[in-house]
């Protein structure tokens, strides 16, 4: 039968302790019992053999004195004080020469033939237990066959002893099993206490206390790895959670500001009559604001889709050089207006979704153009390595402090919060680039030093 219950480690350990210790005790007890029994047997046989010698001696001397007439007397005298000992002597012709009181030999062996053997042990009439031996007693007369001697001793005492010994042993085993089970339970509980501790700590951690950690100091080394893994997981959760809540509050902020602008502006306009021009002006400005809002919403939906693994890029050969060239053509007015210097090297192909990749690189480019000062430099390099290709877009401009770098690809993240909404960016462009890269099993990175900032988009070659 297979138990489908959930396993308890404590119960399992307790059971294991109990089974092992009672097993060991049981084997020990059985061995001891066997040894004791053998010892008893040896003692019995020794006793019986001694008595046989005595009987042989008596037979010899009684025959010498006459025709066995003195035998019962002699034997009775010899057997006085030997409780439970019975002797029978028969002549070779089957005539009973002596039988002690209370003798209880198996009836089918009587009268014993010469050489006929007794069973080692038997049960007599009163269900008494006996052990016996048979032997010969030479009469000392030449030509006369020896008498047959049967000796038995009652095993009742031994049996009693063995019975109580076994009882004691079973009781001992049972008690020992219970005791070791209990001790095992205690030990298991004590041993598993750190685990309960961890459980307790872990169950205290909620979304609001993700910065709590399980202390590894008092934890046994076997569990240290589990604890470290848990702590790492908490760290990652906290990070994701923070980003998510940042994102939610950013969304609220990003949407609230323009909506409240729109509302205020509209209500102010409606508060009294105005000229057609004024109305047109406000409607146009509302339309612009709404357009921006709707673009932000579309971008957020795109990111939400990416988060839910709903972005499934098509697979086609994309010539990155061609794509970047058309992007540069698109952004040419901006590049010329800022009088930027442009350098573009390399060519490479990659498999992926052409439209998505164009958007990803386009966002990097527009970001680069936006942050390059007039007369600055933009350098685009296409690199193909063994297993990946990279687009690197380097622009001159202010060095971005390193603490901002890891978060640049976060949604709505801005290096300088005061520049909020000043540019035309929704603050989602780089996040979208990252999502597209990840949907292609690629990665984005950024470094910034000595007035140069380089964004890289790397994609694995071949299928993703």
């Amino acid at each position, binding site marked *: 039968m297979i138990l489908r219950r959930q396993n308890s480690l404590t119960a399992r350990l307790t059971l294991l302790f109990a089974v092992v210790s009672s097993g060991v005790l049981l084997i020990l007890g059985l061995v001891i019992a066997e040894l004791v029994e053998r010892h008893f047997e040896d003692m019995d046989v020794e006793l019986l053999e001694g008595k046989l010698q005595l009987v042989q001696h008596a037979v010899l001397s009684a025959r010498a004195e006459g025709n066995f007439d003195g035998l019962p007397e002699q034997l009775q005298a010899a057997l006085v004080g030997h409780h439970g000992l019975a002797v029978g002597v028969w002549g070779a012709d089957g005539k009973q020469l002596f039988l002690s009181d209370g003798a209880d030999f198996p009836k089918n062996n009587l009268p014993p033939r010469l050489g006929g053997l007794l069973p080692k042990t038997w049960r007599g009439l009163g269900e008494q237990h006996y052990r016996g031996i048979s032997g010969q007693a030479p009469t000392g007369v030449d030509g006369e066959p020896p008498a047959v001697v049967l000796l038995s001793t009652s095993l009742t005492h031994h049996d009693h002893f063995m019975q109580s010994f076994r009882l004691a042993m079973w009781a001992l085993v049972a008690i020992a099993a219970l005791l070791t089970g209990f001790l095992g339970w205690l030990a298991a509980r004590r041993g598993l206490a750190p685990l309960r501790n961890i459980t307790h700590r872990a169950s205290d951690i909620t979304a609001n206390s993700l910065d709590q950690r399980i202390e590894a100091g008092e934890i046994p080394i076997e569990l240290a790895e589990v604890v470290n893994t848990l702590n790492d997981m908490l760290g990652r959760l906290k990070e994701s959670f923070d980003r998510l809540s940042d994102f939610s509050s950013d969304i609220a902020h990003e949407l609230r500001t323009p909506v409240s602008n729109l509302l205020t502006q509209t209500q102010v306009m409606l508060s009294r009559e105005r000229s057609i021009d004024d109305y047109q002006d406000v409607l146009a400005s509302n339309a612009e604001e709404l357009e921006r809002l709707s673009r932000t*919403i579309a971008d957020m939906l795109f990111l939400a889709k990416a988060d839910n693994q709903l972005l499934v890029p098509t697979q086609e050969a994309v010539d990155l050089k061609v794509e970047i060239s058309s992007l540069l053509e698109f952004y040419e007015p901006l590049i010329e207006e800022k009088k930027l210097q442009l350098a573009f090297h390399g060519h490479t192909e990659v498999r992926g979704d052409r439209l998505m990749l164009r958007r990803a690189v386009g966002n990097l480019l527009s970001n680069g153009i936006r942050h390059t000062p007039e007369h600055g430099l933009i350098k685009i390099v296409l690199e193909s390595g063994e297993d990946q290709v990279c687009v690197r877009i380097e622009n001159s401009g202010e060095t971005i402090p390193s603490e901002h770098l890891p978060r640049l690809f976060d949604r709505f993240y801005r290096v300088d919060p005061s520049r909020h909404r000043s540019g035309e960016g929704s603050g989602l462009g780089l996040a979208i680039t990252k999502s597209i890269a990840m949907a292609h099993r690629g990665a984005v990175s950024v470094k910034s030093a000595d007035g140069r900032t380089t964004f890289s988009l790397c994609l694995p070659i071949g299928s993703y």
Partner: protein
Amino acid sequence: MRILVVEDEPKTGDYLKQGLAEAGFMVDLARDGLDGLHLALTEAYDLAVLDVMLPGIEGWQVLQGIRKAGKEMPVLFLTARDSVDDRVKGLELGADDYLVKPFAFSELLARVRTLLRRGSKTREADVLRAADLELDLMRRRVTRDGKKIDLTSKEFSLLELLLRRQGEVLPRSLIASQVWDMNFDSDTNVIEVAIRRLRAKVDDSFELKLIHTVRGMGYVLEAAE
């Protein structure tokens, strides 16, 4: 030109009807799928604008009904869900174009005009004109008042688009997609800059301005003030 609009959302339906009517179309508005299908099958329309989610029968079924009856008019459908499956399904069922809500009205208007133009196979002119501006497609030459204007190839394409669709307000997204084949919303003002640069060459030294900004909607090339 008669257009059928099937849209259950009251506000959207009303402004679609008003907007299209003001753009010079005759518009019938149906508020649910059954009415829409009935109208589509009994009246003659040049184009239908269908919402996908409709009470009664869905936009898909209306579209199927229209195609089953052998009506070949272009159908543009509106969907709130930007799902690839939706688009593919619509296009497979015989829709000609789609727009994802929310959309700019100018975008819808531009698409409607494109679809209607596709139907009428007018011979494209070799030379496009507006007032004293001439664009020669064969020789790729632009002159104004007889004087040659040097344009880059993209500026030429941009001017060509504006001239072909003079009088129509073209939204930025449409310009980006038609001239540069950029089908994503750029978060830059690149179209604005491109128009400004084109205007500097085409309009700045002339009294009569041709390229106009329609705030909140896009750009239009018009000879009349």
